[in-house]
């Protein structure tokens, strides 16, 4: 029995590590290809490691002002976007989870319906709207259109529904108003679900490229995926540089993810997806 358990455990270890290696391989290859000469990235025969490690690609892409600028601009945008997304959607989530008011049902249907409208169908007409609002080539055009999200609101609401009523009833008896209850009880308790929605929003912003490509023309506001995709199509022979750029563009999200990792699984557990 003991031996059998031991064997099973060992096999699981091996499988687990294998899966991990396979999952990480494409990324590792990308990182390492960034250290290769441009002709070496797709050289035959295949080599995983470079003949000679060289840092020229990384230093060149870091020295490219367009790249660092778009990293900075995208990062700032993503953080603001995530923060606004949390505030706006959690307020609505709280209202729908706890408050009673006239037209609640109507408003609920109104908000939820937007969840089913595919982005592709409104791509062009949204563009016309933002153009008429004079929002082209501003950070606002990147942040505002996607920040209110019925999906995120719904997700947070599920979490709020699971918070025991007893907590706020005490506060209500003490005369606290609803806004106070939201800011002092719900908001602080929300961190697990906020981590998930926050990272989700952040990623959505960071990784988007069709919308920025359409709305941003000013090179000073280029978003990072827009930059990378342009780079890919235009300097198609600079493979090492492209790999280095892709690596660096992925790093902020990876770090963010590692930092918040342990909260994520907790958030998923608590948010009632069981």
């Amino acid at each position, binding site marked *: 029995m003991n031996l059998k358990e031991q064997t099973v455990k060992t096999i699981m270890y091996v499988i687990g590590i294998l899966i991990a290696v396979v999952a990480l391989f494409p990324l590792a290859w990308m990182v390492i290809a960034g250290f290769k000469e441009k*002709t070496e990235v797709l050289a*035959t025969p295949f080599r995983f490691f470079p003949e000679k490690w060289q840092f020229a690609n990384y230093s060149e892409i870091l020295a490219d002002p367009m790249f660092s600028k778009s990293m900075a601009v995208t990062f700032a945008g993503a953080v603001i976007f995530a923060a606004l997304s949390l505030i706006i959607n959690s307020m609505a989530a709280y209202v729908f989870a706890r408050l009673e008011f006239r037209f609640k049902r109507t408003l609920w249907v109104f908000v939820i319906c937007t969840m089913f409208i595919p982005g592709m169908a409104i791509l*062009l007409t949204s*563009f*016309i709207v933002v*153009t*008429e609002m*004079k929002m*082209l080539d501003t950070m606002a055009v990147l942040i505002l259109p996607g920040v209110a999200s019925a999906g995120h609101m719904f997700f947070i609401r599920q979490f709020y529904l699971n918070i025991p009523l007893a907590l706020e009833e005490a506060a209500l008896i003490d005369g606290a108003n609803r806004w106070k209850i939201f800011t002092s009880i719900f908001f602080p308790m929300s961190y697990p679900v906020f981590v998930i929605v926050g990272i989700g929003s952040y990623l959505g912003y960071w990784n988007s490229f*069709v919308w920025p*490509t*359409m*709305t941003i*023309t000013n090179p000073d506001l280029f978003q990072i995926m*827009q930059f990378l*995709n*342009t780079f890919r*199509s*235009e300097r*198609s*022979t600079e493979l090492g540089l492209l790999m280095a750029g892709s690596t660096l563009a992925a790093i902020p999200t990876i770090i963010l993810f590692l930092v918040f990792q342990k909260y994520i699984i907790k958030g998923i557990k608590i948010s009632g997806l069981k």
Partner: protein
Amino acid sequence: MQANRGKVLTGVLAAAMTFSFVLSGCGNSGSNEGNANNQGSTNEATNNGNAGEKPAEKVTIEFWAQKFEDTTDAWFKKWTDEFNKSQDNVQVKLTIVPGDAWTQKLKAAQAAGKAPDVMTRNYSGIAPGAKNGEIMALNDYMDPAVFDDLYDNVKEFITVDGKYYAYPKLVEPSAVLYYRKDLFEAAGLDPEKPPVTWAEFIEYGKKLTQKGIFGASIAQTAPDLGWSSWGLQYNAAGHLPITDDWSKADVMDDKYKELLNFYATLYKEGIIPKQQLSAYADAAPFGQGKLAMTVSGSWSIGLFRNDYKDMLDKIGVAPMPSIDGDQTKPTATLGGWTLVIDGKSKKPEAAAQYIQYLLAGDPAIMIDFFKTSQFSKFSPRKSVDEAMNQDPAASADEWRKLIAEKVIPYAKAEPAYPWDISIAFATAIESAMKGESVDKALATAEKTINDFIAKSKLAGTNPQ
């Protein structure tokens, strides 16, 4: 209902524009100075009356240039700066738009009525653009003399219903054969005798194929074939796969079967890679030594000369082989770029002034461009060619001479019909390569084209 909606939208737009117009200081005044014409025909031009009272404000025009080679971008920047410095009336704001983003950005901007005043456009886009009002006729805004400087065939490319809708910047044949002389020798072929028939191209390709080096490459995906095979469609059948009045498909031609077989043989025999190493327009794999022959546009000369200098001695340039070896048949279309003015531009005079300065003015500006492009592109203007012939570097360039003498004279204009037609025929070529029978592939293309003609009421709309 629709009219209402249209009106509301137009109203909002107009209001918005008026507002920004006011903000930017009613800018158009004085823009006509130094311009040959002073039409006063548009609303804005009437503002000229104010010019005496207030100091003239600069007119700012938006210019979107599609991203090309770095050297071209640099040329646009340099001469736009020069233009801005050269006078006080017009300020051009240049934006280089990445090729990938171009179509969607422009489409969105047009939908919102915010297209740039001036933009790059290729020849095949001129007639359809003129037809539906996307671009403006230039006759009223530019000196008629500048159009006389154009070669007659190029003049036709930009003419729709007797009016000029673009000013051309360059022409470049879409298909030229590049081959490796050293590999020819190694394979026992005469490096001075490149293939002239399709059969030879296939035969040589087989001989040149070896481990790590493919015998040849040519377009092999439908989006690339769509435009790069126009020349060969002419070459094979003498016509395009649609009747001249665009009333029905003209696909069922035995010569087209040969064309499809040509591509299919190259693919099935493994002469070209089974998966393209790069897009048709990008000849980098040839420069990197992965191919013995490649078919690409004349622009690739610029790439080789800028990026693969150590290869140059080994490269031979020749016209694309022809179906029967007759090299006076077209093998290429004359692609190329022009500048056009948006149909809704509020500042056509200023825009035209800029286009005239850049493309139709001092030949030295254009010569600077052809030099930076390593003579891989060709002038649509006689005066530029004359001036260039004085230039030792240009006149001594063998490749330029060969293309100018043996490819361009026989090249055809790009078709003006919608892309759907081209892609339908290209899909037939690709499916033949991927194993579909040639007859079936052509039958499908015929049906697709006829369906498209019916659906979009294309019959009789050929603008040329």
